[in-house]
C-alpha cells in the first residue's frame, strides 16, 4: 500500500513492552514518590542526593527509571502519532525527533547519574 516509518516487524513486542514498562513505572513512580515527595523535608538536599547516588543500587534504580520512563513516554507518543495518516516526510521528521530526543535525554540522564 504505502510506506510506513518505523519498525517493519511485528507490533507485538512494542505493545507488550509498553504494558510492561507501564507496570514497571507504577512501581518506580511509587518508589520515587516515597523518596522524593512523601516527606517534603527529606530527600531534597544535595547531601542526601549525593549520599544516595553513591549507592550502586540507587544508581540502578535511577538508570531503570530514566530508561523505562523515556522509552514508555516516547514510544507512547510515537504510538499516538502513528494513529494519524501523515506524509512520509512528516512522519519521518517526527520519528527522527522522537528518536534523537530519546537518545539525547538518555545520554544526558545516564551521564548525570554516572557522574556521581
Amino acid at each position: 500500500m504505502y510506506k510506513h516509518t518505523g519498525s517493519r516487524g511485528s507490533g507485538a513486542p512494542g505493545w507488550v513492552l509498553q504494558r510492561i514498562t507501564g507496570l514497571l513505572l507504577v512501581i518506580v513512580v511509587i518508589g520515587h514518590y516515597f523518596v522524593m515527595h512523601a516527606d517534603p523535608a527529606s530527600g531534597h538536599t544535595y547531601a542526601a542526593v549525593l549520599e544516595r547516588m553513591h549507592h550502586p543500587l540507587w544508581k540502578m534504580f535511577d538508570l531503570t527509571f530514566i530508561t523505562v520512563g523515556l522509552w514508555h513516554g516516547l514510544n507512547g507518543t510515537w504510538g499516538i502519532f502513528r494513529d494519524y495518516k501523515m506524509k512520509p516526510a512528516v512522519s519521518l521528521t517526527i520519528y527522527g525527533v522522537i528518536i534523537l530526543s530519546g537518545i539525547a535525554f538518555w545520554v544526558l540522564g545516564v551521564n548525570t547519574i554516572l557522574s556521581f
Partner: protein
Amino acid sequence: MKVTLRIQRYNPERDSEPYYQEFIVEAGDEKERILDLLHQVKWKFDGTLTFRRSCAHGVCGSDGIRINGRNRLACSTLLRDVNYRKPIVIEPLPSIPIIKDLIVDMSDFYRKYEAVKPYMVNNSPPPEHERYQSNDDAEKLFESAKCILCACCTTSCPSSWSDDNYIGPAALLKAYRFVFDTRDEAADERLDAVDTPDGIWRCHTIFNCVEACPKEINLTWHISQLKKRLTEREM
C-alpha cells in the same frame, strides 16, 4: 403522537454539501422502530429520502445509521430508546464517504473484511463425518460469528477516524472468528494480515466499538485475545 426527525440530506446530483431537513411524523406508540418512521417519510412525504434496509429486525446489517450521535440500526432502535421529545437527529455513519442521504460507501469496509482471509482454510483431507469440535470451542466462536457487517463499530472508532487505513474492529473480529477456530489452519496468515502498521496495534482499547455494536458483541475483548495470540507468537 408526533415526532420530529431531523435528517441529514445529501444528493450529489443537486447539493454541494449535506444539510438537515426536518419531518414531522406520526408514531403509534413508543415501540415504533426508527426504520418505520423513515419509511413513513419516504412513503408519505418524500420519496427521494434514501437509505438501505432489508430484514427490518436487526439480522441483515443494512441500516446502520447515526441516531442522536450514536451508531445504531434503524430497525432495532425504538422510539423509547431515544429522546423523542426533541427532534431525533438522523445522519449517515460517520467517517466514511456519503453516497446519498443515509447511504454510505461501504467498499472500503468490505475490502478490510476481505483482507483478513475471512474463510476457513483447512487443507488436510476432511473426514467422512464432521470435524469434531467441543461445544466449548464452538461457543468461543459464536459471539464473533454473530457479526452482521453493519459497520457501526468501525465507523465509531476514533482510530478509524484519524486513519482511514486502520483495519478496524469489524475486520479484527472476523480475524478472531477464524484464528480461534480449532478447525482452521491459516491463523498465521491472518495474524500477519492484522499485524501491520495500520493493523491491530492502532486499537487502544477505547471501547467505542463495543458501545456501538447492535449485536452486543464485545469487540474489544476479542481484539485483545488476538493481541495476546500475536504476542505469544512473537515472543
